């Protein structure tokens, strides 16, 4: 009997949520939302949970929020799961996080996971060489297994910092251009011996598109909203290149406390500024 009431209750809630999303969809819906999952440790402390429990609760919150986003029609969701800076934390905590990640990544492959429910393609973004072998292999397995999904995309940033991403992209772009130069300079030598001129022409031709081709996050468009929980208003080296025009939203709630109302508020704010930003984008 209790189960029936519970299931009736939850189905009512989900109907109401869908109705709310339908109302929101009258206005523009963001194509890409990024989340910085901040506040797990503070949550655990606040609720007197054990060490590492905050992150586990945080994972549950992540799955709910992903579900809301995909229901709403947001195609890309990016999460800042683990920064290169987080390796500085205590080794026990880092190990706990790695173990949790391995567990959850493997969970994504299961039949009933959110990935299959919503046809999500998963990308792991970052300097994956910095991860230990089991986690890296599990990540690659998931990327391969979901490669054919195309309804929604989930980008999980692990061993990621934006400055590392930009440096890496610049390095690759320069390496690529360097590979193109010797032929042109030889040709010019044959013509008029002005090698230095060609050299200068060569490196002047690095364009925006070259960087964007090599950037890890190149598989997704720039985010429309960047949400950072726990009230901290900073980017912490996340999506610096990509967040030049996106809306920044920093609710005071800790990550495990975040809910539907925060998402709705972020989307409403996005809808408010969207016409102006679209106009600017077209001008530029």
């Amino acid at each position, binding site marked *: 009997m209790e189960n029936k009431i519970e299931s009736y209750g939850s189905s009512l809630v989900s109907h109401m949520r869908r109705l709310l999303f339908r109302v929101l969809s009258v206005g523009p819906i963001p194509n890409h939302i990024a989340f910085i999952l901040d506040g797990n440790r503070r949550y655990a402390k606040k609720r007197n949970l054990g060490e590492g429990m905050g992150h586990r609760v945080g994972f549950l919150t992540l799955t709910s929020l992903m579900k809301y986003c995909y229901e709403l029609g947001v195609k890309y969701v990016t999460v800042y799961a683990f*920064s*290169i*800076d*987080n390796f*500085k*934390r*205590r080794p026990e905590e880092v190990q706990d996080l790695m173990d949790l990640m391995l567990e959850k990544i493997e969970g994504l492959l299961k039949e009933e996971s959110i990935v299959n429910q919503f046809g999500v393609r998963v990308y792991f973004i970052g300097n994956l060489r910095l991860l230990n072998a089991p986690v890296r292999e599990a990540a690659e397995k998931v990327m391969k297994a979901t490669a054919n999904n195309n309804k929604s995309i989930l980008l999980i940033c692990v061993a990621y*910092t*934006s*400055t*590392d991403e*930009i*440096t890496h992209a*610049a*390095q690759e*772009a*320069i*390496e690529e*251009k*360097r590979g193109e*130069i010797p032929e042109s300079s030889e040709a010019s030598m044959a013509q008029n011996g002005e090698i230095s001129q060609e*050299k*200068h022409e*060569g*490196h*002047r031709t*690095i*364009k*925006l598109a070259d*960087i964007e081709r090599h950037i890890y996050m190149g598989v997704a468009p720039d985010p429309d909203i960047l949400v950072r929980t726990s009230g*901290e*208003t*900073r*980017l*912490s*080296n996340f999506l*610096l*290149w990509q*967040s*030049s*025009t*996106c*809306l*920044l*939203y920093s609710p005071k709630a800790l990550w495990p406390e975040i809910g539907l109302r925060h998402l709705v508020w972020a989307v409403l*704010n996005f809808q408010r*500024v969207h016409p102006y930003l679209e106009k*600017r984008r077209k*001008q*530029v």
Partner: protein
Amino acid sequence: MACLVNSSAFAFSGISPLHSRSDSVSRRSNFPYRTPTTVSIKNMPSKQDALRFPPLCQHGGTTRQGRRKTLSPIKSMQDHEALPEGLKPELMPKHVAIILDGNRRWAKEKGLSMELGHLSGGRVIKNIAFLCNKWGVKVLSIFAFSTENWTRPKEEVDFLMGLFEEVGQTYMDEVTRYNVKISAIGDKSKLPEPLQELVATAEETTRGNTGLHLLVALNYSGRYDIMQATKSIAGKVKDGIFQVEDINEILFEKELKTGCAKFPNPDLLIRTSGEQRISNFYLWQLAYTEIFFSKKKFPDFNEEDFIEALSSFQKRERRYGGNK
């Protein structure tokens, strides 16, 4: 009513409304613009007056100085005066960056022209620079003109270019007097020639100054900065100065335009007018910057608001991804 409003706008911006309609044939710049109630920064009542800083708050009464006073020479800027109550000297940000948003909306709300909006904003920059110098902030960055601002109406762009020239020429003496170092960051090659020359002169003249380092972002954007750093590094790799494998974050950061400053990355970014985005200002440099959004439009941003931003900054816990 409009007259009163205009007069008060003039008073706030420190310019006497009596000096209107006068021409500036002898001006060095080609600032062609005439507002309906003509503004001329050059026609300040006297040189002595020009050296005084106006009351920092529009209503004149709430500043620490209380009323205008003539400031004594440069020595006072080196010994930092006591901070306002609540601010701790050891927690002051070394580098503050400001996105000065809301000049046009402020003007529209008050029924003034866009030009007066920008002029009023200009006065606020001067006040903030003064406060930064006084309170021990080492670097101040201001987002004066973005690479994306070229799409604004031609009159506005021309006005802004003229305004930068005008301000540069007028305040050169004061800048020297207060030992401020000026650097202009951005793609200066696209700016009008007279402005480029002025900027070069200003940078040269103030190169040895050791007070506040003022970084003026002119035709700047974060992506432009990253692109030019990449191209510069590519050039150095070609010339054999270093190898591709040597490229790391530290090297990259030095190549950015902010590399000229002792503290290249802002500790605090303030954006006014309530909009919550970076708008392609510093991107790389904002990796760990604390961001403060103020709902006030920039011309209304006064000393109290700046203190609020600084206290908010001082209360924040900066973990840089590591442990508490």
